């Protein structure tokens, strides 16, 4: 089912939790709502579930306006952060519950519940009570319960946050597998960018109730529309340098050292040469340039850390600290000055006043 949010706004007293959100979610895709806590992602999910009613705007499920439709009539399934399995019912009864509510005959309901339990691989636990299950198993039961009535939309509210690191990876893959097997439109709320990157077809990044960018995760990483998106995505985070732009709209003047650096392309929109800009470069987009004749940023190495297959370089340019992930082949020592070059097409330039990306 295609989901459309048109100018969706949610206000609690005088706090605007969600501010004019416009998103169209295509049928059968998995979309992550991503953002720091308090950004309005859970509020958005609760509006989709019908547990909150939007203050303004229109919410469409397919062609149907659902603003005023109660959750019980929305044909949705939902997995809660703490799973909310009914503690007094067995696993089988938990999964059958939505069917019982839909007045499905008992025999058929049990059959469908068993099928669903097999899909999420918990068919050996059907007689247990939720309290006798591990976190991952509870998670699977919750997914089965959400999917058993064949809803048109599956909502997941930070479903992995209560699991340990390994289980989280496993369940992430499981959710993706189940989603693709069933082909259901799914909305997944998370504050973990790595989770969102790995699982989603598209990511909606939110901040302060406003949608920041809605695009496939790799696009969001490679072409952030603004500084917030660039900073939120990626670990270690993107490096930001306060720079000035030369009159040719292509030359960057670096802070403190007044060195210059040539951009690959002209800035997209006109900017005053006096305006304050931020140059953004992801740590892994730096490489050490040994040819002194070539362009690059000369920095002083503060510390080198070996992490797995890479070296993490802590460096300083004037007053600004930088992080670069470089190949361990090049030997670098603390206190040395090295020249860091940027991979072509990987520079970002943000207008500090409004955060807009001026290059992409």
């Amino acid at each position, binding site marked *: 089912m295609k989901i459309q949010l048109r100018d969706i706004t949610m206000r609690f007293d005088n706090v605007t939790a969600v501010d004019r959100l416009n998103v169209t979610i295509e049928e059968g895709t998995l979309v992550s709502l991503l953002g720091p806590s308090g950004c309005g992602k859970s509020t958005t999910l609760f509006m989709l*579930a019908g547990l909150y009613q939007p203050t303004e705007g229109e919410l469409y499920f397919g062609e149907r306006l659902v603003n005023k439709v109660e*959750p019980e*009539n929305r044909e949705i399934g*939902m997995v809660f952060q703490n799973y*909310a399995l009914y*503690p*007094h019912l067995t696993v089988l009864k938990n999964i059958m519950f939505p069917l019982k509510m839909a007045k499905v005959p008992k025999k058929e309901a049990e059959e469908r519940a068993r099928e669903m339990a097999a899909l999420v691989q918990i068919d050996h636990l059907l007689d247990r*009570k939720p309290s006798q299950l591990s976190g991952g198993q509870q998670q699977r039961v919750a997914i089965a319960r959400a999917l058993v*009535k064949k809803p048109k939309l599956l909502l997941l509210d930070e479903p992995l946050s209560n699991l340990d690191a390994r289980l989280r990876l496993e369940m992430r893959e499981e959710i993706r597998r189940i989603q693709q097997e069933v082909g259901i439109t799914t909305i997944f709320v998370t504050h973990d960018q790595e989770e969102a990157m790995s699982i989603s077809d598209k990511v909606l990044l939110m901040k302060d109730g406003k949608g920041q960018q809605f695009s496939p995760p790799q696009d969001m990483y490679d072409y952030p529309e603004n500084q917030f998106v660039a900073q939120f995505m990626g670990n270690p985070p993107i490096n930001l340098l306060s720079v000035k732009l030369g009159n040719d709209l292509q030359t960057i003047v670096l802070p403190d050292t007044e060195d210059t650096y040539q951009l690959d392309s002209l800035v997209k929109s006109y900017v005053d040469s006096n305006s304050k800009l931020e140059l953004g470069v992801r740590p892994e987009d730096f490489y050490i340039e040994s040819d002194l004749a070539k362009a690059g940023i000369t920095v002083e190495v503060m510390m080198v850390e070996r992490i797995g297959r890479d070296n993490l370089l802590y460096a300083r340019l004037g007053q600004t600290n930088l992080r670069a992930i470089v190949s361990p082949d090049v030997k670098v020592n603390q206190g040395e000055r090295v020249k860091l070059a940027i991979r072509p097409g990987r520079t970002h330039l943000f207008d500090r006043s409004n955060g807009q990306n001026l290059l992409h």
Partner: protein
Amino acid sequence: MNDKPTMKKTMKAILYLIPALLIIGTFSFYPIIKSFFMSFYTDYDYFKDLVFARGLDNYTFIFQDPEFWKSIQNTMIFVIGVVPLSIIISLVIATFLNQKIKFRGLFRTIYFIPFVTSVVAVSIVWRWIFHSQYGVLNYALGFLGISPIKWLSDPDWAMPSLIILAIWKGLGYNIIIFLSGLQNIDKQYYLAARIDGAGAWERFKNITVPLLSSTTFFISIVSIINSFKVFDEVFALFGGQPGPAGSAETIVYYIYNKFYGEWNFGVASAAAYVLLFIIFIFTLIQLYVGKKKVNY
């Protein structure tokens, strides 16, 4: 934290417990044991505390006393009339008071007032409410075209009047307990149930009732025991009489009457032990049922 019980620690603990133990011992344990022995006294000088003969005569007497059987019957009717209705009504009210409504605190106070008010004061008001000529209840029924009922003077209506009073009196306590039980239910279950397609009634039936079962169990045990012990409501509502023609005489009233009215201490004690045995059996049944039903 502290590992082994030592002599010193035990002595210290006993020292703290003694004041309460003395009071409980004097006013509870001693009378319980004493009355057990008293129930076997068949010939006894109350003033000189001399026992001339012991035997089972008191028990034989009460089991052959139609008034005793009548009082057991009345008590049973009272328990059956009060307990289920009281639990259902207070659960419904507690559910409403648990919603987001205006003046919630005020309503909670109002419903709790009967519990903290003196039975005697309350009974005076109810005597007026039940009054056959000037009572507000008959006045209200008059609007529905129902002719006046002699609530307190008709033997057929005395027990229903008593039951109404007792239900109303017990509501406050039950509601408070139910409210605390309701507040312990995680709101997530209701959200989940709504998503799963459960309407308000289905949510009540499938979430509230089962998740509240331990609270309901507690309330049912307490109110059955309390109902078996009913006395002051009877005494106050019917002006010291056990209702018209003894129609509202309960076991405890019977015990009271044998003790203070007829100075028949042995019989009163025997009747008290029969009551204890009845309550004991009922509680055992409840524990058995509770173990099967309250198990999540």
